[in-house]
């Protein structure tokens, strides 16, 4: 209870200190917020693009289009052969009639198809391979290409793999950015606390003379770093939220043209908490470095 009261007292004191110099405080929080919002923004964009990728691609599959005019008997034999193939998990047959109906239902195609005198679509198999990686799928595609009655074999999800590689690149870039800017945050706090220690030198000396422990002297500085980091984290969250709001407005017009309901999602609740916790921790860390670097130099004489 005693320690709780003491911590509340220091917290209250810290907030009053922050309000004492509102301009400097606001500037510091904004700098931290901007520094953090860059990697956070990158993370949010990556996450949205990734979800778009998996939304469209689903599970990896290979489409096999048969030569037009292949007989029912041949189709059955081919189906059995595919089922027995060791690299294939399952298959799905899409007859040309079904394919046409599906196409009619999709956007803006009904009129075009209505004008056709005969069904131009071939029968097709959708093959789900056991192995989802690009190499195995390419090998399977090449093998199927040699089979009879197969007009065209298409790897539907190749672009997903390319996207995946691109996303990996993006993730690495964001990680590097996050690491660098985390150091920046620590450095900002380090310097702020250093200045505070210098200006409060006298107070620290007196406190030591009348029996203050190191923990007592350190505490307000650590709280200051922690609070400033936390406020910076909240600023970053708000900056990203505002940016997404603006971007989503643009994305909305764009996706309407493609009949998609894609939009950029802000951080999840858990991710938001992680961001703020991490920002607070970095602030605390910067303050801790600064305090352990400078406080021992102040000894009463």
């Amino acid at each position: 209870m005693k320690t709780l009261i003491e911590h509340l007292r220091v917290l209250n004191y810290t907030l009053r200190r922050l309000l004492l110099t509102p301009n400097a405080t606001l500037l510091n929080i904004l700098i931290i917020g901007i520094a953090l919002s860059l990697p956070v923004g990158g993370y949010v964009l990556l996450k949205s693009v990734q979800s778009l990728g998996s939304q469209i691609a689903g599970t990896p599959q290979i489409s096999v289009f048969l030569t037009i005019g292949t007989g029912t008997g041949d189709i059955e034999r081919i189906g059995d052969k595919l089922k027995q193939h060791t690299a294939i998990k399952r298959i799905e047959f899409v007859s040309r009639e079904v394919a046409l109906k599906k196409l009619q239902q999709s956007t803006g195609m009904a009129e075009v198809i209505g004008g056709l005198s005969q069904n131009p679509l071939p029968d097709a198999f959708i093959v789900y391979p056991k192995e989802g990686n690009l190499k195995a799928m390419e090998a399977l595609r090449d093998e199927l290409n040699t089979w009879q009655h197969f007009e065209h074999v298409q790897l539907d999800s190749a672009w997903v793999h390319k996207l995946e590689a691109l996303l990996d690149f993006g993730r690495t870039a964001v990680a590097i950015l996050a690491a660098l800017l985390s150091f920046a945050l620590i450095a900002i706090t380090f310097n702020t606390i250093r200045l505070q220690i210098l200006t409060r030198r006298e107070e620290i000396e007196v406190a030591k003379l009348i029996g203050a422990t190191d923990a007592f002297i350190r505490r307000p500085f650590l709280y200051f770093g922690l609070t400033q980091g936390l406020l910076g984290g909240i600023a970053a969250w708000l900056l990203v939220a505002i940016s997404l709001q603006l971007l989503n407005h643009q994305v909305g017009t764009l996706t309407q043209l493609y009949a998609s309901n894609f939009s950029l999602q802000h951080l999840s609740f858990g991710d938001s908490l992680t961001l703020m916790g991490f920002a607070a921790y970095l602030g605390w860390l910067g303050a801790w470095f600064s305090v352990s670097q400078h406080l021992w130099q102040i000894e009463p004489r």
Partner: protein
Amino acid sequence: MIKFNQVYKRYPGGHEALKNLNFDIAEGEMVYLTGHSGAGKSTLLKLVAAIERPSSGGVLVKGQNIRSIKPAAIPALRRNIGLIFQDHKLLFDRNAFDNVMLPLQICGFDHREAGKRVRAALDKVGLLDREKAHPVALSGGEQQRLCIARAIVNRPTILLADEPTGNLDTEYSTEIMNIFKSFHQVGVTLLISTHDESILRQFPARALHLKKGELQG
């Protein structure tokens, strides 16, 4: 309470501030420390408060050896010692009340209880009506009394005063010495450094006389 045994203090560069000091101060005793400036009075007080450590010999304060005391044990020791400085060392960013509150905050006192104690200490030195005043607005004598209030608010068993009447005229000096006398009467151990002969005549007590770092007589 305070025991010096063959204490030497040398500063880097070879200056010997204290030489072979041997004395005892009993619990509840009031002792003067006299001598010219530069005789080593301040250094001696600093040894008792563990602000400096002896170069050799033993300084025992409440049974603790200052020469070998661990840094982590120093705060607890200092909470038992009230320090009164010639230059007051008041904090100018807060009012009288908050200056006296500082030692209690450091000890983690309950806020309401602490407030009562602060007022009691201010009352003791006659500054109760000035609790909202900032140190800048106080006279030299008032600042010294505020410094005393801060030193005693924690009810220490030892009071160390370095030239407490140094810059004050006789009337203020007598006032402050009367405050010290009242602490002596309730059993506080006092060590007061001074070069003011009139005080010694007015409030007689044992005196340790330092000359060039050595005890005389």
